[in-house]
């Protein structure tokens, strides 16, 4: 379990992270969302013990990043937003280097390297030099590096940046698989639809403050507590809106000049069907009728202002 307690980082006169707190459990895939300079990387670097917090702390399975950084490091796999790969090193040598650093026993090293290569689909590149790999493969090699010591927590900073759609899809599947393996995964990204696909928890950060935290559905529900139906009417959208306002399951109804009626709705599916029936029976020409569900992008845009530190 990861407990982040009031984590704060100041650089001179600038506060990059303003005391953020959250908890994550094994199997959680946490999407960390924020603009550039919002404080995502600083937070991740503090959790990975690379940056000393000004105050507050993070505790991973009982080990405190400030008091026992070595114990924390043994349990984490950190993948920054750059590769930092060595030249003139073969793929297996690169992984062997990190396996040695993480004290993987000599007898198990070869097996561990083979298994992480298989997991990241790089087995055929075992003897290749790292600089000869494509960007997507290098990204997967970095992930393989993070896995050699079977960490409990994976910190992935912008893992999908610069990847083509196929590599991105593969990476997404790999991260989801890691979540299923019971690891805590923290993923920071700008690409919101992608995060919504495989993250079960998200946090939105702006100017070092955590504005929202929790399961994706719950956050969406918080900013849009009621369901919203949208009906496109060919003519007299104003009249249609007025008619719908009188229905018991409709909380609010508004229309636009281009014939769209937005209905805030608190009923079940039967009541939803009745709305459409009512419109048709009253002679309105309905060209479309759908539910407008908010997504992560809406939440992000609603909560943030675009300001940076």
């Amino acid at each position: 379990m990861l407990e982040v307690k009031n984590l704060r980082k100041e650089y001179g006169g600038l506060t990059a992270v303003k005391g953020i707190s959250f908890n994550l459990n094994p199997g959680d895939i946490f999407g960390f969302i924020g603009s550039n300079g919002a404080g995502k990387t600083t937070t991740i670097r503090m959790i990975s013990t690379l940056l000393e917090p000004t105050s507050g702390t993070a505790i991973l399975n009982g080990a405190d990043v400030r008091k026992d950084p070595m114990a924390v490091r043994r349990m984490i796999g950190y993948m920054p937003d750059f590769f930092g790969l060595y030249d003139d090193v073969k793929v297996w040598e690169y992984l062997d280097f990190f396996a040695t650093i993480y004290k993987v026993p000599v007898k198990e090293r070869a097996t561990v390297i083979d298994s992480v290569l298989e997991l990241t689909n790089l087995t055929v590149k075992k003897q290749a030099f790292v600089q000869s790999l494509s960007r997507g493969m290098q990204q997967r090699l970095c992930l393989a590096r993070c896995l050699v010591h079977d960490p409990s927590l994976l910190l992935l900073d912008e893992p999908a940046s610069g990847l083509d759609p196929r590599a991105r899809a593969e990476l997404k599947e790999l991260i989801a698989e890691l979540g299923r393996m019971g690891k805590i995964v923290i993923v920071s990204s700008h690409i919101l639809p992608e995060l919504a696909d495989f993250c079960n928890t998200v946090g939105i950060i702006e100017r070092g403050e955590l504005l929202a935290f929790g399961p994706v559905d719950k956050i969406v529900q918080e900013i849009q507590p009621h369901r919203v139906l949208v009906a496109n009417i060919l003519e007299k959208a104003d009249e249609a809106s007025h008619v719908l306002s009188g229905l018991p399951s409709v909380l609010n109804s508004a229309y636009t000049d281009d014939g769209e009626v937005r209905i805030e709705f608190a009923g079940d599916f039967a009541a939803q069907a009745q709305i459409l029936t009512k419109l048709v029976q009253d002679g309105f020409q309905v060209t479309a009728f759908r539910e407008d569900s908010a997504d992560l992008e809406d939440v992000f845009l609603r909560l943030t202002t675009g300001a940076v530190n």
Partner: protein
Amino acid sequence: MFAVGGWLDETKRVYFQNATSVRDYRVQLRGSRSVILFGLYLFILIGAAFFAYDSSTRYAGGSIVDAQRQLHTFAATVMGMLGGAIALVAPGLSATAVVLEKQRQSLDLVFSGPVTPKYYLVGKMMSSYRYSWMLLVLALPIVAASVVLGGASWYDVLTAFIQLSAQGLILTAIALLMSTMAVRPVSAIIWSYAATIVYCIASSLISVSYVFSRTFGGMSGIGSNANEAPWYVTMSPFTALDTSRSVTVAWGVHVPNWIFAVLFALATSKIFVLAAGTQLSFTGGREIPSLRIHSLLYGFLLSYAIGCAVGGSVSAIHSVTRSAAFGSTPMAVTASDTSSILGRAFCGMTSVLVLFIAYLSCFGYDREHRYWPNGLVSWKSIWNGTPAGNLPFLLMTLLLASLGMGIGAGVSGVGVVSGFYWIYVGYAISFWVLMFAIGRMVSSFFGGLRNSRVLVFVVLIAITSLPLPFLTAVGRNSEDPTNSMLWNFYFLSPLLGDDATRVPSALMFAALMTGAAVVLLFLSELRARSKMVQAQKYDEQA
């Protein structure tokens, strides 16, 4: 028991199973690059050896002694070339070891794992140092030629190799520190070679006098034994063969100097690696307390050694002048003079703080590291490297060093040092506290640590050296230029002149500098606090 087992495991891991060293080793030996480089090195060495042999033997006379001397010159030349190769290659290899990883951003990957700075730096050091050893091993056939020809014995070659290894280790450690501190590879290389040049010049100046005394002064070394010499003559890479047989007499036993050279190299490289480690660790890391404890210990031992040397010389002069004056007089060195000389030697010794005072006094932020003011003086913070602990650390260093020197002088026959010595100690302490206060004041005006450090260094050099040309010009017509009235206003004047008459002015300047330091420290603390309040306000507004 478990602690010892853990320590052994960790030591084994650091020195024998070091992943950094293994990885670098694989890369170094990959492809034909290393073969070509070593081939080229051998080619140059063989060519130079032939040239040296030809030059050495061409002018040999007919006598066997002359021929023997020429062959020895040849062996010494070959060993000197080897020393030159070590001085050239060792810093060059380690100068880029860490800074390139910084540029490649691979340091974060390594330090997000359970890796201590010591583990990483020792690995880097072994990777670079291995090359120095390869250079020595590859040169063995050429050196063996001089043994076969009779210019040197195997013992000479072995001890010279040990000395060269020790010097290679020191130069590697210095360059590694520079590599850790630098931001760009070019600056790391420049600083490493600058430090190497300073080291080579200083060590060669010391050992060349010994070599000349052996070569041209007949048979004598410094003591009664022809090979007796202070151990530090072995520290020059260029005179390894000539100093290989030198010994130091300790408690009546002739101890080969190469043993001291190895011990000195190990101790020196350890402190350089510790200093490099502090650059890679948090303020709460183990490296800073360790570096500070080692600094205090080394400072004490070094001062003790200097105290012994200066005290020994002074007491020797004392006895000579006494016997010259038949015990009674005007020429005899008094106890006050002795203490005064020792005091000035102590002040001179502390000049090494020029290199460190900016690091101790300044606060601010430097990339991701931040040394933010946490008070003026805190004895609790002395080991953690935060600004509040730096003044106590400075004072503790100076006090321990003064004790070390006093004890060393006492042991060497001067006896208990008088109050004059302590007045000079007080003078030195007040001078460095004033410099510390200037550093704090400068930092309170700047945010960036690097700017503050550079400015402090510049201010320090300026206020100590700029008055000198002016004062020299004013007093140039008098017999003793330092006798001009204006010199009395120069705050380093107590260190000039050759008698105890300067002691009152040392006392006066100590009081003045302490007063100035207290005022500056107080003002800088006020500024630092208001700066922090402003930063907090800015933060709240944001």
